């Protein structure tokens, strides 16, 4: 019996792994034998996740990805210590709801910086020679917000749209190095963020839910798609954005 999705001893970099989709990716990769390098600002979340992972070769780094200038040194340090990467998944994202009237430049900069800026910087740094292994695949977690407008998520939606646009360019630029890069586009997924939104804005959530034919998604649904994109099964896929949205964008 063959296993078309093989991750034994592969080293995957994962941001935003403490909760939600990132956490589901970490747990799934762990089951498949991967070594996981986690970067997150949530230290208790990282510790809790680390305690659940089997194997001794995982490592977590508590780091605020708002500090874009320090990412290069962080990545070099990780590669020196742990070796090069086979994959990178960017799950981190600030999703604060902020009406336009309150979307001041500093808030825009923060959201764009963490969601998009840190993604570009991590891609730039991990794609240097000897920082990645053959078959290196990168996945960014985008959002249906980048395709369907909602009030009060302007900067968040823009950051995800920027990610998808950048991925199309980077795919072309990195093709000669055989680096693939794609995004997944989740809709409403059952994460702590969703639970909070449902409590605070039940009517808005209800409206959005009507577009998801398959109901509310679970983090594992998005994690499955991410694993596919990290694996050799998707070796002919790059520069793509794959909807994992229960039919949201088709509705």
């Amino acid at each position: 019996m063959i296993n078309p999705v093989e991750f034994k001893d592969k080293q995957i970099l994962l941001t935003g792994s403490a909760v939600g989709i990132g956490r589901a990716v970490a747990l799934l990769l762990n089951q498949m034998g991967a070594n996981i390098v986690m970067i997150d600002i949530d230290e208790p979340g990282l510790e809790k996740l680390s305690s659940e992972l089997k194997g001794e070769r995982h490592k977590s780094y508590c780091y605020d990805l708002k500090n874009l200038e320090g990412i290069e040194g962080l990545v070099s340090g990780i590669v020196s210590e742990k070796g090069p990467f086979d994959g990178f998944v960017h799950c981190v994202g600030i999703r604060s709801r902020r009406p336009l009237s309150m979307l001041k430049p500093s808030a825009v900069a923060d959201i764009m910086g963490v969601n998009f800026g840190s993604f570009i910087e991590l891609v730039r740094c991990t794609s240097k020679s000897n920082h990645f292994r053959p078959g290196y695949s990168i996945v960014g977690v985008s959002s249906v917000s980048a395709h369907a407008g909602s009030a009060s998520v302007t900067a968040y939606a823009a950051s995800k749209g920027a990610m998808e646009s950048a991925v199309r360019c980077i795919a072309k630029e990195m093709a000669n190095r055989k680096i693939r890069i794609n995004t997944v586009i989740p809709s409403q997924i059952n994460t702590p963020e969703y639970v909070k939104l449902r409590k605070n804005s039940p009517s808005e959530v209800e409206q959005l839910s009507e577009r998801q034919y398959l109901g509310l998604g679970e983090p594992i649904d998005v994690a499955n798609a991410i694993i596919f994109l990290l694996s050799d099964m998707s070796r002919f896929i790059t520069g793509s954005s794959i909807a994992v949205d229960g039919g949201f964008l088709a509705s």
Partner: protein
Amino acid sequence: MTNKEKLKLIEETLELEADSLNEETNLEDIPKYDSMARLTLIVLCDDEFGKLLSGEQIKKFVKVKDILDFMG
């Protein structure tokens, strides 16, 4: 920040006329006090006072005084 300053801040944030609010003003009587206005106040409390106000909490506020008290 004094309550007078907080009232001014709320008026500016919600684009209301100066001196149109006082502590006893009923929130429901404020023009266009809708879900967007409530979200705006939630963000204001976080940005200016570092206090996290939930949607559930703000829906229970009746008067402007409730917001001022929350701001601390």
